[in-house]
C-alpha cells in the first residue's frame, strides 16, 4: 500500500521575516535582528531572565550549541535551555548518569563486531540506524547471537536468533523477569556486584514477584524465551545492550533505562571491551548538544550546574554569575507558557509544532508568548508562528564545526557549499544578537569556539581540530592532547582498588507502570510510532529527495485485526484517540501482532499523527509517551471525508 498524498519540498529561507499586523513580511537583517533583540530585552526587563527560554538545535554543531547555551546563561542570565534531546534520549542520559555518573553510551561500534551477544531492545536500527546495523551484522557474521525485543517484528527482528514481541510498555516486567531468572539460576556476577554496585538486595526483592509466568502474562512473551534471553545474557563472555526510542519515548522512560542497566550490573556486562550499554541517538548531534551544556541542568562537558566548583571557571571565563539552580526543560518550558512564566522563546532549528505531542496544545501555548524568534533553514510550521524569522545556514554542510555521535566520537563538520544568498551562519546570528544585548562578542571562528569548549570541559580538552582531522574523530573522554583513552567507559568499576573504583553504580529500584493511555472497549488498539528507512522525523528534510521507497503515511495493522474489522489493504480508515482523529490509508502488515497498530510522524502535513499521541511525560527526563496511545480504527466510506479530515479536540490558537 502506498499513500499518494505528499507535500511539496520545502524551499530554503533567504530573507528575514518580521510580523506586522499579524502577517510575516520580509525585512532587512538589521531590522529583524533589532526586533529579535528588543523582544528579548523587553521580556527580561518586565518578567526577569527566567521568562526567556532557548530551544537549541540537536542538528547543529557543538560550537553552535555551546554558543546558544552561553547566550542563554551569559547574555540573558537563565538556565532555560534545552533541545529536542528531550523528545528522544534524555531518559538514556538521565538513566546512565544516575548509574554511572556520565550520560554517554559506554561502548563503541567496533565492540559490537567483536562481542558474543547483542541485545537490541526497543529499536529498529536496520531502518533507523542502518550503518550501525552493519556493525551489528559484522558481529552476527562473526558468530554473535542477536536477541531483539520489540513489539513489532521489524526488519531488525528478522535478523535475530530470537524475537521477543512484547506488549507496548511492558519493558520493565520483562527486564525484571530476566533479572530474577539470572539471580534464581545463580548466574549473577558476584564479584562485580560486590565491588562495583549498591542496592543488590533491594533489587532481588524488587524483581522477586516477576516470575517467568507472571512476566509472560504481562508482556505476552513466552516464558521459555524470557528464560533463554536471561541465560544467554548471563552466560555470554561479552554482551552489548543496545536500545533506542522504544525504551525512551514512554512516560516512565528513565525507569525503563534503569531496568536495562540493572541487567548489565547483574552480569558485569559494562566497563570491559565488548561488554557495554549503547543508546543509539536519533539525531546527528543530539549527544553533542547535551555535552555542550544546551540542557538546563548541566554545563559544558556534562558538568553539574548545582556544583559551585564547576560553575566557577565558567563564571570567571564569562565574567558573569551563573544561576545556581536548574533551568526549565523543554516540557516545563511549554507548560510555563500556559502559566505565563515563559514569555519569550528563541527557537534554533527545531520544529516543536510538529514534533511535540498534541499539536493543538503546542500551538495554543506558542500563541501565549509575547515574543518568539525562530532561526531555521526553512519556514517550518513553527516558524510560521514566530514574530521574527531568521534564515540560517545548514550546519552539516554550510558551516565548520563538530558533531558528536552515539559512540561519543567528536568528528569534524566542514563547509562544503555556500549557504543561499541571504542566509547567515548560526553563530554569526547569535553573536549579532548578543552584540545588540550589550555583549560585544566579535564573531569567533568555529575553531576558536571549540578551543573555548576545550578550556572549560575536561573531557574534550585533548581534542584539537588538528587531531580530530588526523584521527578521523576522537571519543570522549579525551583529557590530554598526547593520549587516547579506552574506547569503552567505566573500566574503573572493575578495579581492585576502592579509591580508583570510585562511586559504585546503584541498581535502579524501579516499578512497572503501564502506559497512561489505557485500552478499553472504545479505544481497543495500541498505537505505537516509529521511523521508516527513507524518511526522517517531521519530513522537512527528507521531502527534498524523491525516494522510490516512500509510501506516505499509512496505518499499519496486523492481518488478524484487519480481518476482524473487515478491512482491506488500501482502505481509508479513521484513526481516533481520546485527543483527536486522523484519516490514513490502511496497510496490512505481518510485522504487527494483533492489537497493535503503527504509524510514523514523517508526513505531518498530510496526516498529523501527533494529534493522536499523548503528552504524558517522564517525570525525570520530561520525554513524552509517543510510543503508546490508545486508538480505535474505523473504515471511512465516503471519499469527501478523506479530504481535510483531521480534527483535534481543542481549537487551535489564533
Amino acid at each position, binding site marked *: 500500500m502506498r499513500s499518494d498524498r505528499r507535500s511539496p*519540498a*520545502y524551499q530554503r529561507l533567504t530573507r528575514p521575516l518580521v510580523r506586522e499586523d499579524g502577517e510575516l513580511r520580509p525585512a532587512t537583517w538589521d531590522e529583524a535582528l533589532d526586533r529579535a533583540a528588543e523582544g528579548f530585552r523587553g521580556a527580561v526587563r518586565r518578567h526577569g531572565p527566567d521568562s526567556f527560554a532557548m530551544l537549541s538545535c540537536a542538528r547543529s554543531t557543538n560550537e553552535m550549541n555551546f554558543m546558544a547555551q552561553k547566550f542563554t546563561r551569559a547574555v540573558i542570565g537563565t538556565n532555560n535551555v534545552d533541545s529536542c534531546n528531550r523528545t528522544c534520549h534524555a531518559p538514556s542520559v538521565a538513566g546512565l548518569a544516575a548509574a554511572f555518573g556520565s550520560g554517554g553510551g559506554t561502548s563503541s*561500534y*567496533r565492540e559490537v563486531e567483536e562481542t558474543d551477544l547483542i541485545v537490541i531492545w526497543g529499536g529498529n536500527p536496520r531502518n533507523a540506524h*542502518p*550503518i*550501525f546495523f*552493519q556493525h551489528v*551484522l559484522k558481529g552476527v557474521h562473526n558468530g554473535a547471537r542477536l536477541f531483539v525485543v520489540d513489539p513489532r517484528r521489524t526488519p531488525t527482528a528478522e*535478523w535475530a536468533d530470537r524475537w521477543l514481541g512484547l506488549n507496548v510498555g511492558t519493558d520493565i516486567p520483562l527486564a525484571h523477569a530476566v533479572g530474577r531468572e539470572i539471580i534464581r539460576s545463580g548466574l549473577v556476577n558476584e564479584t562485580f556486584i560486590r565491588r562495583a554496585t549498591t542496592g543488590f538486595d533491594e533489587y532481588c526483592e524488587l524483581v522477586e514477584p516477576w516470575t517467568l509466568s507472571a512476566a509472560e502474562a504481562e508482556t505476552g512473551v513466552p516464558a521459555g524465551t524470557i528464560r533463554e534471553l536471561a541465560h544467554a545474557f548471563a552466560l555470554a563472555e561479552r554482551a552489548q545492550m543496545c536500545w533506542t526510542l522504544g525504551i525512551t519515548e514512554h512516560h516512565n522512560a528513565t525507569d525503563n533505562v534503569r531496568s536495562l542497566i540493572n541487567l548489565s550490573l547483574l552480569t558485569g556486562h559494562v566497563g570491559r571491551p565488548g561488554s557495554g550499554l549503547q543508546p543509539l*541517538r*536519533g*539525531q*546527528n548531534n*543530539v549527544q553533542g548538544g547535551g555535552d555542550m551544556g544546551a540542557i538546563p541542568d548541566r554545563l559544558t562537558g556534562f558538568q553539574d550546574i548545582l556544583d559551585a566548583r*564547576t560553575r566557577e*571557571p*565558567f563564571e*570567571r*571565563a564569562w565574567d558573569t554569575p551563573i544561576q545556581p539552580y536548574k533551568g526549565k526543560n523543554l516540557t516545563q518550558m511549554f507548560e510555563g507558557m500556559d502559566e505565563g512564566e515563559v514569555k519569550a522563546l528563541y527557537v534554533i532549528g527545531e520544529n516543536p509544532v510538529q514534533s511535540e505531542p498534541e499539536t493543538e496544545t503546542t500551538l495554543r501555548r506558542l500563541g501565549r508568548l509575547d515574543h518568539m524568534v525562530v532561526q531555521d533553514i526553512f519556514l517550518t510550521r513553527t516558524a510560521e508562528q514566530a514574530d521574527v524569522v531568521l534564515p540560517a545556514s*545548514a*550546519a*552539516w554542510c*554550510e558551516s565548520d564545526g563538530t*558533531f*558528536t*555521535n*552515539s559512540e561519543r*566520537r567528536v*568528528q*569534524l*563538520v*566542514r563547509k*562544503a*557549499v555556500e549557504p543561499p544568498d541571504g542566509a547567515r551562519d548560526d553563530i554569526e546570528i547569535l553573536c549579532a544578537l548578543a552584540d545588540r544585548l550589550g555583549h560585544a562578542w566579535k564573531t569567533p571562528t568555529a575553531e576558536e569556539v571549540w578551543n573555548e569548549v576545550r*578550556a*572549560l570541559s*575536561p*573531557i574534550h580538552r585533548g581534542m584539537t581540530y588538528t587531531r580530530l582531522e588526523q584521527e*578521523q*574523530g576522537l571519543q570522549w*573522554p579525551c*583529557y590530554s592532547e598526547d593520549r587516547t*583513552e*579506552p*574506547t569503552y567507559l*567505566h573500566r*574503573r568499576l572493575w*578495579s581492585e582498588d576502592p579509591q*580508583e573504583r*570510585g562511586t559504585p553504580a546503584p541498581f535502579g529500584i524501579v516499578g512497572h507502570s503501564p502506559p497512561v493511555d489505557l485500552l478499553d472497549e472504545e479505544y481497543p488498539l495500541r498505537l505505537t510510532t516509529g521511523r521508516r*528507512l*527513507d524518511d*526522517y522525523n517531521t519530513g522537512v*528534510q*527528507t521531502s*527534498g529527495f*524523491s*525516494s*522510490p521507497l516512500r509510501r506516505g503515511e499509512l496505518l499499519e495493522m496486523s492481518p488478524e485485526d484487519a480481518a476482524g474489522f473487515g478491512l482491506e489493504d488500501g482502505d481509508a480508515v479513521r484513526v481516533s484517540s481520546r485527543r483527536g482523529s486522523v484519516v490514513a490509508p490502511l496497510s496490512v502488515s505481518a510485522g504487527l501482532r494483533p492489537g497493535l497498530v503503527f504509524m510514523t510522524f514523517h508526513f505531518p502535513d498530510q496526516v498529523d499523527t501527533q494529534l493522536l499521541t499523548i503528552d504524558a511525560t517522564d517525570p525525570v527526563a520530561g520525554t513524552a509517551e509517543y510510543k503508546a496511545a490508545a486508538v480505535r480504527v474505523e473504515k471511512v466510506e465516503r471519499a469527501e471525508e478523506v479530504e481535510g479530515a483531521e480534527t483535534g479536540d481543542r481549537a487551535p490558537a489564533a
Partner: protein
Amino acid sequence: MTAAPETPVSSGPVPLAPPRRLVDVTVDGEQIRVPEGSTLLDACEAKGVDVPTLCYGDTLTPRNACRICVVEVEGARTLAPACSRKAEEGMSVLTDSERVRHSRKLVLELLGSSVDLSTTPGVPEWNERYGAAPDRFGPRADPAPLGERDARHAGEHAPVDGAAAATVEQPAKDDNDLYVRDYGKCIMCYKCVDACGEQWQNTFAIGIAGRGFDARVSTEFDVGLPDSACVYCGNCIEVCPTGALSFATEFDMRREGTWDEERQTRTTTVCTYCGVGCNVTLHVQDGEIVKTSSPHDNPVTHGNLCIKGRFGYQHVQNAPGKRQARGGGETMV
C-alpha cells in the same frame, strides 16, 4: 585555562591488535618488508609500483574476477592475482615481465572489445602501457535491445560469424529517480553484488544471473529496482569501478556533457540525519552537490551510507523540479 584537569579515573593499556610479524619479499629485484598478512598488491604499493586493478576493492574481499593485477611469482606455474595473493617470506615477484605484460594486455583487449570502458579511470593509460588494441577483434556488434540479454537462456545461442566483436552493450536501465544501471559498462567484477550482500549491506537485492558471456548482474527475476529488494543505499555505486552504476545526477550530467570532475570539490563532513555519525564526502560542482561518497577508511562507515545519507542532501539546495526516470532505456523519454 580556567578549570583544573580532571584526573582520568582509569589509566592502563588500551587494547590493541596483536603485533604482526614482518616478512621480506622481493619486488622487481628490490627487497621490501611488509607486515604478515599483506598482499602482493600492498607490497607493490609500498614500493611505489603501479599495478592496475579493476575488481579489487579496498573494503571488499578479493574476488579475483578481472585478472588485470596479475604478477609473476618466481617458481610458480601460473600468474598470481596481486590483490589477493598474500606475501610470503622470501617470495620474489616480477610486475612487468613479458608474461605479465602479455596477460594484462589480453585482459584489457577482451574487456575493452566487449564492454564500454569510456568511464573507467586508467584504461587509456593502461592500453598504451601494455600495447592493448581492443579493436583488433573487428567492429563492435550493435548493442542489444533493452531486456534482450536479460532474457537469454543457457544453450540457446545462434552460431556467430565472427564478423563483429560481441559486446554486452545495451541501453541503460533508468527506472527510478536516484540511480541508473548502465550494464553496457559492466565488467562483472562482482563488487556491487558483494557490497549489497553479506560483506556490507546484507540486502541481497542483486546477484549474478546467466552463464558464460550471458552472465549479468540482475535483480531477482530481472524486476525493476523499485520492485526489487533494493533499499537505495548506493553502496553498490560506491564500489563500482567502471561507472556502470551511477547517481542519476552524474548520469544526466554526463549525457548533457556538463559533468566535470576537475571542477568539483570534495569535502568530507558528517551526515545530518541519525546519530550514528557517518562521514559523507560531498562532491560539489558549481555550488551544487552532485554526488556523495564516504571515506573507505572511516571507522564509522567503511565507505557505506544509507539512502538518507547518500541522497538526502537535496533539501539544502533549492533544486529545480524533480527528475523523471526515463523508464528502461535512452530511447524512452
